[in-house]
């Protein structure tokens, strides 16, 4: 990856992931220890990012919020990419009516703007981090299905796959040996491109009160709870928002860098 912006994104991701993983050791205060006597302190030597309405350290909660966000991102992308790739590979490799059915279903899911479908789902489920994961994963898998289907379809027609089929190699084996490995690169690029979107969607759902609930530290929730204090206590809203933006920014840069470096179009061809 010669791209400087992509490298910068990768570096930023590393820092963010490390900060989230090491939060229990890095954070200067306990994640959830209300201290009403010291509420809404501006940023200073004691509290770098200030304290929130309950007197909790904002820096600590931003660090812990990173854990929540990363769990959501990893879970959503694992679930949706796995489900999508399996369905897509089946559709692309098998072809015929099975392909038609799967692709029409993905069309229907793709007809909803992702955030809207997540939102509708999250409304009918109980608000929680799990709900956020389910709601986003349900809207995200069709993209992977479509991508994997196109890769699988192109690979299914290659001479060596034809040859394997003629030699009587069973279909599942061909899929595992040839089709899956070839789908991996474009899917991984897509995953890295999507991570930023997942962060933003999760934050939006939490901001609407459909995701993480108190006392979980979550960036979108933190913004929602303190938004009325923005004018008087800027730090309570600014820092969680910046955290969302930087994380999404880093993932997007990394995703683009990877895409340019690995160019999935070349693989799909």
């Amino acid at each position, binding site marked *: 990856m010669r791209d400087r912006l992509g490298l910068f994104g990768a570096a930023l991701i590393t820092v963010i992931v490390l900060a989230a993983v090491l939060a229990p050791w890095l954070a200067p205060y306990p994640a959830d220890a209300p201290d009403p006597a010291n509420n809404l302190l501006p940023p200073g030597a004691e509290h770098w990012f200030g304290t929130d309405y309950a007197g909790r350290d904002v820096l600590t909660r931003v660090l812990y919020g990173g854990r929540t966000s990363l769990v959501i991102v990893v879970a959503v992308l694992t679930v949706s990419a796995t489900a999508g790739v399996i369905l897509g590979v089946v559709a692309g490799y098998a072809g015929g009516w099975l392909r038609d059915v799967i692709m029409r279903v993905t069309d229907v899911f793709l007809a909803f703007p992702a955030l809207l479908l997540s939102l509708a789902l999250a*409304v009918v489920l109980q608000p929680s981090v799990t709900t956020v994961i389910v709601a986003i994963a349900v809207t995200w898998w069709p993209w992977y299905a479509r991508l994997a289907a196109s890769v699988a379809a192109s690979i299914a027609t290659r001479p060596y796959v034809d040859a394997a089929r003629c030699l009587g190699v069973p279909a599942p084996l061909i899929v595992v040996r040839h089709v899956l490995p070839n789908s991996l690169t474009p899917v991984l690029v897509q995953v890295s491109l999507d991570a930023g979107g997942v962060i933003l969607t999760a934050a*939006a759902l939490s901001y609407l009160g459909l995701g993480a609930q108190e006392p979980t530290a979550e960036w979108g929730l933190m913004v929602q709870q303190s938004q009325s204090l*923005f004018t008087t206590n800027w730090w309570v809203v600014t820092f969680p928002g910046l955290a969302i933006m930087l994380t999404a920014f880093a993932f997007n840069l990394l995703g683009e860098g990877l895409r340019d470096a690995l160019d999935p179009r070349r693989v799909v061809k």
Partner: protein
Amino acid sequence: MPRYVARRLGQALLVVAGVVVLTFAIMRMVPGDPAVAFAGPKATPAQLAEARERFGLDDPLWVQLWNYVRDLATGDWGTSLRTRQAVLDDLYVAFPASLELVGTALVIAVVAGIPVGVLAARHKRRLPDLGVRATSVLAVSVPVFWLALAVQTVFAGRLDWFPVAGEYDLTLDTTSPLTLWTNITIVDALITGNWPIFTSTLEHLVLPALVVAAYPTGVVAQLTRAALIEESGQDHARLERSLGFGETAILTRFALRPALNPVLSLIALVFAYAIVNGFLVEAVFNWPGLGRYAVQAISYRDTPAIAGVTLLVAMVYVLANLLVDLLQRVVDPRVRLR
């Protein structure tokens, strides 16, 4: 071409049918009894039974689905649990306001995004390009609700340059009442020559529209850049160079039009995304559109209203995609051949 249009229409109808089924399924997933939700927790068994009867909850699922489809088709999109009005009537009032906001944002996105993309492509891999790319990635990475809050606090709250919230100064309704034609305030104000409401709406539009525009502008700029760079590496760009055209002329006069094709098809995607992104912005700026309606419905667990918004936006999305597919054939003569 007519055959293509017919096939594409059929496809769109199939998707809309799927959208209806999916929405129905989601609404049936609501935990707890919808009859209780409607009749209230203190309802008597008789009232509950009446509610069950009214919603047909004792019928088999496929009958319920059929009834749902029939109701939708006859214009009965249910009754909002919050406003106690027909959902379709609520949407009829809210949707134009969203269109107004998102439409303005998309105009900003195209007007700002394309020149910025051209600038980046012109200075490929040099400082302006790097700056444009970093900024446009930042624009698609910013959480829109947070940007809305920040912009509102700074430019409306602190600096007091723009109004804090709302679509226009409601006191104007008494001094210069608006005649409705399209329900889109700014358009109606313009065609009826209602200048007080027109200027007031414009002032109120600036901040939320800029916030909604951030994402599409970034996307349009990035895609314009990528498409232009690809286009300027084609054989025809070499011929144009050999004829003495400069790089800027090649980009703007020859490469831009074919490059606009992918940008255009993206607008449909971005349009739907911007409507939903606009939901959060509408909530912050108290803009009387679909978003504010949906967000209020969320806190009320108003499922018929949410279903209505979901259906409407999905249908608009399908329609937008359809239009773009057809429009593309007008913009790029090559596509007509296929």
